[in-house]
């Protein structure tokens, strides 16, 4: 007699940039195996309060006829398989499954603190990929309630300090990080795509996360943030500090927040305002060469 087992949920918890992310999933669902990039972030202390919860359901998704207002269908990761809707007090994210005969269906409350994800027919690879991405999207919003912003950046660790390189896709953020690893001694990669930044009493810290773009670099580490550098490809190398408003505007496009929840968007700006008051921002026009990394390093670490 074991009729209740199928509806029992177990919890798998992670701590990312000090926020606790909890998955509730069927006992026999191999969640941890599906999320290898989360391994370093597993959190076993169940007494801590959950900040963000995601329930994974294998039941049939309760897809309504009217999904609400289509807010966006643009996604670099999913192309035209992706849709994002606002409906009353919820946001709905859908991704067509690979076979094209089902939908990944995610329903989140307005602040993304509680979400339910319905899993369609799919391979283990697809499940790992979609759940990892959905968790990133959720974390990017809900973390804004905890003085934390997820940014789009490649980050190096130079002698225990983090430097975040910003720029549009294809600008060469990862390339510039690699130039530091090769030419600036005592430098390693912290994260190549989606680090989180948090304001603490001890200053502004930058954290590795389970999300790092195409580079498998999922470090559960935190560093004081030494500076941001926005990169632009150019036929020469030139560094300029950006103060006040210019610094804010240089970092803003790299920060994560949906625009359709104005409180979250406002939180993002408030956190960024505080970060910019403490962390310098530079603008580097650069070639993909050693001299670019050396110039950038000389400005950021000039007093050391």
């Amino acid at each position, binding site marked *: 007699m074991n009729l209740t087992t199928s509806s029992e949920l177990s919890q798998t918890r992670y701590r990312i940039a000090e926020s606790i992310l909890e998955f509730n999933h069927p006992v026999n669902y191999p969640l941890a195996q599906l999320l290898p990039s989360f391994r370093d972030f597993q959190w076993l202390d169940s007494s801590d309060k959950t900040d963000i919860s995601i329930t994974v359901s294998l039941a049939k998704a309760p897809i309504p006829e009217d999904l609400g207002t289509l807010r966006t269908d*643009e996604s670099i990761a999913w192309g035209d398989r992706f849709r994002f809707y606002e409906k009353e007090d919820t946001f709905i994210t859908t991704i067509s499954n690979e076979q094209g005969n089902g939908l990944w269906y995610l329903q989140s409350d307005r602040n993304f603190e509680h979400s339910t994800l319905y899993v369609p027919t799919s391979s283990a690879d697809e499940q790992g990929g979609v759940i990892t991405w959905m968790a990133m999207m959720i974390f990017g919003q809900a973390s804004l309630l905890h003085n934390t912003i997820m940014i789009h950046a490649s980050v190096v660790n130079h002698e225990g300090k983090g430097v975040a390189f910003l720029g549009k896709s294809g600008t060469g953020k990862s390339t510039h990080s690699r130039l530091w690893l090769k030419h600036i001694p005592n430098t390693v990669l912290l994260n190549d795509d989606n680090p989180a930044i948090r304001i603490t009493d001890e200053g502004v810290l930058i954290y590795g996360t389970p999300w790092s773009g195409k580079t498998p670099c999922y470090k559960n580490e935190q560093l004081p943030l030494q500076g941001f550098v926005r990169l632009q490809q150019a036929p020469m190398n030139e560094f300029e500090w950006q103060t006040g408003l210019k610094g804010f505007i240089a970092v803003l496009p790299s920060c994560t927040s949906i625009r359709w929840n104005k409180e979250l968007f406002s939180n993002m700006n408030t956190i960024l305002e505080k970060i910019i008051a403490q962390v310098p921002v530079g603008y580097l026009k650069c070639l993909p060469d050693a001299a670019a990394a050396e110039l950038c390093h000389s400005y950021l670490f000039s007093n050391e």
Partner: protein
Amino acid sequence: MKLRSDLVLRTIGSDHLIVDPSQDRIDLSTVYTLNSSAAWLWEQLKGKGFTSDTIVDLLCENYDVDIDQAKSDAEILLQDFQKQGLLEK
């Protein structure tokens, strides 16, 4: 009239700005910059109903301007707010 309640005036160093998130499908969020007197007026006006006269009074009480100058400055500021969509509809 009223200032939009969802907009927050921010100060970074000596700069004042407002970020207006685009609600369209395409992300074209806008950053408005305000000089220090416009920023001061924003703080005085936020959260309440006001008219052009409210601004004229505020300017005359706190700045060394005559009434005609204040009226014309208030008019220009209001037109800017209107044009940029910073007032509640």
